[in-house]
């Protein structure tokens, strides 16, 4: 059962505006515009980045939004709070590469033998963002966050394709790190600061922490009817 006092139970839990966001019917039947407005109200609440600088955070927010843009399917990375999620993650053991083997020597090898750089996620973001913004300035005379979306997409495409090197970091490595963490931020439980209002889960029809499907193992292909619940007991 959800903890009776979610705030006590999960100190990370954001306090968020209840009301409109709190009902299943709102999400299921409510129009797209209403969704966006409600989510936007949420996103408008400012989070102050702690690990990243304000400029780095602007880059991150803009880049994540291109990876997962707001569209007819549902909210994008910005409304879902993905940048906040990533900044928070970089302050956890994960950000320090706690479960990565980080002993040298570090030797370059074929891609299929996996990651071989001496950098943990915090380094990848700090170095990668600085270099990507420098590249953006050099190519377009502006920081990434200030570019039109098609120019942003062109830069991300170049990074993904591996044609750009960001200082010591291959563009592809940085892109994959960014993509991976963006998707985590969109679909992880909201206690981690992303997936605001469980908008990521609602978009794909995932019921979150329900974890009890005794009666829905086989309903001949009908959609599961109950909206999501989060670990802290938030429902939608």
């Amino acid at each position: 059962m959800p903890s009776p006092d979610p705030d006590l139970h999960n100190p990370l839990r954001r306090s968020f505006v209840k009301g409109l966001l709190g009902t299943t019917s709102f999400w299921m039947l409510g129009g797209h515009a209403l969704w966006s407005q409600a989510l936007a109200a949420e996103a408008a609440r400012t989070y102050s980045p702690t690990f990243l600088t304000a400029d780095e955070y602007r880059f991150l927010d803009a880049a994540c939004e291109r990876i997962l843009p707001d569209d007819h399917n549902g909210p994008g990375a910005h409304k879902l709070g993905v940048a906040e999620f990533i900044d928070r993650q970089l302050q956890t053991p994960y950000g320090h590469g706690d479960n990565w083997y980080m002993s040298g020597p570090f030797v370059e090898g074929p891609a299929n033998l996996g990651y071989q750089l001496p950098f943990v996620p915090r380094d990848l973001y700090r170095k990668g963002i600085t270099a990507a913004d420098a590249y953006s300035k050099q190519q377009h005379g502006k920081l990434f966050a200030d570019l039109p979306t098609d120019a942003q997409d062109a830069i991300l495409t170049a990074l993904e394709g591996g044609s750009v090197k960001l200082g010591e970091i291959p563009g592809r490595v940085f892109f994959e790190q960014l993509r991976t963490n963006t998707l985590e931020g969109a679909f992880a439980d909201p206690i981690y600061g992303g997936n605001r209002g469980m908008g990521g889960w609602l978009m794909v029809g995932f019921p979150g922490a329900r974890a009890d499907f005794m009666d829905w193992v086989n309903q001949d292909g009908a959609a599961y009817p109950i909206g999501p619940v989060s670990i802290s007991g938030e429902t939608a």
Partner: protein
Amino acid sequence: MKHADAIVIGAGWAGSILAKELTEAGLSVIMLERGPERSTAIEGAYPDSVDELRGAIRKRLFQNLSQSTLTIRNTIDQTALPYRQLAAFLPGEGVGGAGLHWSGCHFRVSPDDLRLRSAVIEKYGEKFIPEGMNLQDYGVSYAELEPFFDKAEKVFGTSGVAYTINGKVTGNGNVFAADRSSDFPLPPMQDTFSAQTFRNACSEAGYHPYAMPAANASRPYTNTYGCQMGPCNFCGYCSGYDCYLYSKASPNVNILPALRQDPNFTLIANAHVLRVDLDSTKTKATGVTYLETLTKKEVSLSADLVILSAFQFHNVHLMLLSKIGTPYDPVSNTGTIGRNFVYQTISSSRVWLPPSKYTNQFIGAGGAGVAIDDFNCTNFDHGPLGFIGGSPVWVNQAGMKPIAAAGGAGGGGAPRWGSAYKTDLVETYKHSLGIDAHGSNMAYRDVYLDLDPTWKDAYGQPLLRMTFTWKDNDIRMNQYVVSKIAPIAKAMGATKTHLVHLNQGQPFDTRHYQTTHLGGGAVMGEDPKTSALNRYLQSWDVSNVFVIGSNAFPQGMGYNPTGAVAALAYWAAHHIRTTYLKSPGPLVKL
């Protein structure tokens, strides 16, 4: 120095079974586990355990690579590089081992898999075996192991449906399965919608679908040791998670509660075994030395009997570090420790159903599903095909959660980000299902394990080095079996099908999860020149060391390994109890 009659290294299935059997035989047993204690009541409890980020993504229950990992290369002429981030395979760590967070697909074996070399030669002649393939028999038969498969299922609380029991057809189980001496302890798991759709299509196509045997409890169950399981509710947080409902069999739920009550049993967690200590003749183990990982204190224990049950490649690593037996040399083709390292050929294809059908992929249980064995083992004619091995094919909807789904969506020409990607992700998550070809992998002369010359673990010991890639025989086997999925998908009413198979020239890629079903490296057999262990999993070289795990498999089989590991563990324990303890020494005299 503290003494125990037996020391067991590793608290997974293999170690827990041996510890239980040896304490039952009256021995004092110390079990050493390098990871922490784990309890369902604490970290396994709802709702904190049903958290994809902390679970399968940040991998809270898996091996901590920062302390120890291995290096990997594809071919002998390459420099192996460290496996720095968990991806291709996910070894467990902590009490319960990978048995705490496995899925629960609980198979026996196909009898021919235990004697594959003999079976192939009988049917097609010795020339059928490709140059460089080390095809071998286990040296033990299904008939000999049957009582131990039976015993293990009653401990695991396995759900399933038999085909024959004592030669009589009793149900709609797997027509290719070997005969059983008794039924499964629990009825089969219910088919999910996806599994049922697959079942119907397979029947239509003329194949023989069956409910996969699952160590997920379909009903409440009390096992042989008095340990209790609750019924599985298909929560979907199964593979990679500890089960909050006590429904998935694990050493923690099914064996350790009984074992912990035995005053002869001591479990020491956070104890990383550095080596097995040998006497000056190198033919007798005197005990083990371990590091208390919290205090960094080195401790030596003495013992009469040492059980290596640290998982397949950790067992091989410990043998090499302890200098038990002769390391394998692929050039001179001598030595056995590290020889016949094998994996499995896994490929997951995807089928999209019409938009009116929701596959609800988040609903599922790790071991539940529907499979066909028509293309597994020796169940089909390999003569015209010219390869050895096979794959079961199945829909094993184990609970797909959105971070994993999103990470895997796109690619292969389709966008991996942006609006089109999002559209594709939503549709794929809601309306598609996965079909796996879960296949065998043969052993080759130049695929093996040894010690790395460069990289070390946090304790200053050389890392294990893996030399592995996909070979022609297994690639063609995989392609053949995957081609059989197309007509099944069509019969399922697929609107789109994405078949995935291995490709010639495509090396093993360490960046993507395939399976943790690693095998071989210290295999069992009847010839000490080609096996590290005799048919009782006893080291040929150091007779008071038994090595229990999938390291004993001479080749990788189509089925998941743990059923065979558990049966081999009970088989070895039986012979230790009935023969070895009465007169310690080699159980097989040459």
